[in-house]
């Protein structure tokens, strides 16, 4: 199976999973929002968030055992710098690739359209520069 087919299959699974969360809990499957909500002391609805993130963790645990090649990580400096920017930026910008890219775009949200256009652009610039400079 080519990587395009895996990409599409994975994408469909993600879409179904997000729809399942919407159907059962009425929530947007925006990972940064789900996790960020747990970090906020004022959040009351914590259990569904823990359960959802727990599911992500279980998938990773099993995936790491069954298909270790499917998982990777950046080098330490990039992981740290990237992580800080992703964490701060996602909260500041009210969403990430799943929240804005999948859920927001499907509602034709103007905010998400702008967010996706912006982070795709800066993402391309950062990745291209990194590729050129390394």
């Amino acid at each position, binding site marked *: 199976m080519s990587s395009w087919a895996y990409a599409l299959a994975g994408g469909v699974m993600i879409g179904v999973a*997000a729809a399942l969360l919407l159907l*059962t809990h*009425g929530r947007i499957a925006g990972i940064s929002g789900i996790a960020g909500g747990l970090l906020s002391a004022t959040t009351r609805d914590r259990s569904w968030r823990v359960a959802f993130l727990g599911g*992500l963790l279980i998938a990773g645990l099993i995936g790491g055992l069954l298909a270790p090649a499917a998982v990777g990580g950046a080098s330490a400096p990039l992981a740290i710098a990237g992580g800080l920017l992703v964490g701060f930026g996602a909260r500041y910008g009210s969403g990430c690739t799943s929240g804005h890219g999948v859920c927001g775009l499907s509602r034709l949200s103007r905010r998400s359209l702008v967010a996706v256009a912006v982070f795709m652009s800066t993402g391309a610039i950062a990745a291209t520069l990194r590729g050129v400079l390394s």
Partner: protein
Amino acid sequence: MNACGMRCRVMSLVMALASGALFGAGLLVSGMTQPDKVRGFLDLTAWDPSLAFVMGGALVTYAVISRVILARRGDPWFDIKFHLPTRRDLDLPLIVGSALFGVGWGLAGACPGPGIVAAASGNGGALLFVGSMLVGMWMFSRTSRS
């Protein structure tokens, strides 16, 4: 939605967990948990467009199913209402935040979901990424009053 007893509560959490597990499995199958593939998608000098099918596939799937759900139901299974975003305004935080997010994504080749999944598999770089991501999120919560 009627009052949710113990069995209902357990079922609600099982469904949330199942959603997360399917989401994570999708991320693994799609290749999003491989930073090299993600950077290959974003790097214009060595472009690998296959990841476009991830967002495309997810987007179309979710768009179709979510519309059916919202057209047929007034509330979700385990809550009294749907919690959908209502903001429509464009503001500077949206743009600056997204810009910063994108830079981080391009540098690390990971975003929150894939990072968490990869970290759970024990990958060192992913663990560093997620730890830093949590610090970044915490830093935001300290600088804002929202």
